């Protein structure tokens, strides 16, 4: 194995890892605000990618417009789902909302298959696929772009959730929604807002990863599962943790294709997960697991 391939692989692992981190964070936003374990988080990404694909088909070349429309559409969809299907269930407890999101996940996956067909679709790459030379290594620019965008967006979200009034209010809902309500926070609006934000961020990750992995109805699981694992790996609720967890997972995934039998490489992700469970179940940065801080 020569070093160029290894560096290439690690770089694409980092790019994918950045997107996993975004999924992990959007998952964390919902979980920390509403205590809903949203199994459909990855499918929000898939949905966003398909919406963007349709926008691109209608308006060729307007990639950034497609990105914005896809994100907003999925955000609205997520908020609507929260209002219709999840809000009546908060009082029943986590198990019920969880089962609902499993139904939602499969409904989205199958709905995509009904609307856009079961075949693999290709989205044009906005960053170009011409490799450039950096320090004597041939590197495809989209990897670097995605990596930087993911870190930038994580930073923006970090500031938003940690420093702004809105972010603090969301955290308050997670800790005690009744007291938050008494203090004048509109809890319902915060819950919808959390879902909206998670839909936007999830769709963003889905749209960015689409040119690399191609689009297929099951891409929600391929995006979501690493996202959940990254969230746990970094410690539920820790945003730097999610970022680092995402990177670790992305690199392990990318390298596993080189190291082990490629037919069995999908298992590598889960093996990492199980190892983390056995070694340090609360994750790398997880301190408080139940009613902890968001960031």
């Amino acid at each position, binding site marked *: 194995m020569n070093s160029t391939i290894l560096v290439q692989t690690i770089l694409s692992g980092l790019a994918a890892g950045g997107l996993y981190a975004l999924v992990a964070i959007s998952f964390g936003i919902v979980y920390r605000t509403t205590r809903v*374990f949203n*199994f459909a988080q990855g499918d929000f990404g898939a949905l966003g990618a398909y919406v963007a694909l349709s926008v691109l088909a209608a308006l060729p070349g307007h990639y950034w417009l497609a990105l914005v429309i896809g994100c907003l559409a999925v955000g609205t969809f997520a908020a609507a789902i929260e209002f*219709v*299907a999840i809000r*009546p*269930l908060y009082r*029943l407890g*986590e*198990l*019920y909302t*969880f*089962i*609902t999101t*499993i*139904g*939602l*996940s*499969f*409904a*989205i*996956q*199958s*709905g995509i*298959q*009904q609307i856009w067909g079961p075949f693999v679709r290709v989205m044009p790459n906005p960053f170009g696929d011409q490799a450039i030379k950096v320090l004597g290594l041939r590197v495809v620019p989209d990897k670097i772009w995605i990596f930087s965008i993911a870190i930038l967006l994580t930073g923006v979200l970090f500031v938003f959730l940690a420093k702004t009034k809105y972010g603090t209010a969301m955290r308050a809902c997670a800790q005690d929604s009744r007291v938050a309500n008494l203090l004048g926070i509109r809890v319902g609006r915060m819950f919808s807002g959390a879902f909206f934000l998670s839909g936007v961020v999830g769709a963003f990750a889905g749209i960015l990863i689409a040119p690399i992995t191609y689009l297929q109805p099951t891409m929600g*699981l391929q995006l979501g*599962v690493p996202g*959940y*694992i990254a969230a*746990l790996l970094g410690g*539920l609720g820790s945003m730097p943790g999610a970022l680092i967890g995402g990177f670790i997972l992305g690199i392990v995934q990318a390298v596993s294709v080189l190291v082990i039998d490629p*037919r*069995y490489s*999908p*298992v590598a*992700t*889960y093996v990492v*997960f*199980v190892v983390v*469970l*056995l070694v340090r*179940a609360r994750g790398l940065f997880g301190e408080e*697991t139940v009613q902890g801080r968001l960031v």
Partner: protein
Amino acid sequence: MIQRLYASTFSLARYPALLAALLLIEPVFSSQYLIRIVNTMLIQAVAALGVNVVLGFAGLVSIAHAALMALGAYTSALLMLKLGMPFPVAFLAACVFCGIVSGFVGLLGNRVETNYLLVITLGIHVAIFLVIVNENWLTGGASGLFNVPKVEIGPWRLANDRSYYWLTAPVFVAALYFAERLRDSKPGRAMIAARLHTPAARMSGINVNRYRVWAMVFAGVYFGASGSLFAHLIGFLGPEDFSLSLTLLLTLTVVVGGLGSNIAACVSLVILTAIAEAFQQAASSWLLFYGILIMVVMVVAPRGMAGVAESIVERIKRVRTLTRRPAGGARL
């Protein structure tokens, strides 16, 4: 409530009576098509009872149901095919093996918040399917395993669906019996307590983690039995027989029936099968239908059919007590 109604109706020998009734109505399923559906339904009912133990009793959301059934099916089929074992041995081996694997998953799940069990079980699903699809020499790969041996128990050779019914019906009744016994026993109550309020269950001295593992083991045995029966019914095994949509169907069955009620799970399976058979041509959109139905049921009747039946009976009772004059003095 359905439970109680059922208990009072067949209080004496309800399981032998149920079995006798099932065997007596066998001629009703006259066509080959119908008896195949009934057999499949009984086999799926065994798995649904397993899901009810995991999800309905213990409140653990797993997604490896179909994969564990596949494990049981391939174990049983391969033991008979490659090692020439008799069916009862292969069947029991499948049950035990699936129980162990499932229990192992439960042990891993105890390390994290219960929600993460879903990710672990998804990993088990992926791993089992990669082995099935890739190990051609053993499992026949993606094209499937042909010539799964027919069942022979002593002098009886269950070569067709009609005779196979005499195997599936008793196994189903036995599965129902054990699931009901579990429900009424200390471990079953402990599992349900752990689902309803985990901290309270812990405070009452229930070892929640231990009972979660036992729920997984119990369900694993059911999935093994169900998979084994399925393998020898069809005579052919392919990986797509045990897809995530089967898992979703089993989950939906328990959700529609109402978490924790064995009987309601069986009834809802009958209803869902009937719906599926009525709209067979729309097969490609099953997953969409199941997914949306889960959400609708959760919002409309989160406690399922059992919950709806119970609230109706409660309401009737309340009306009765309000209109009836209390006998023998005031009774509140």
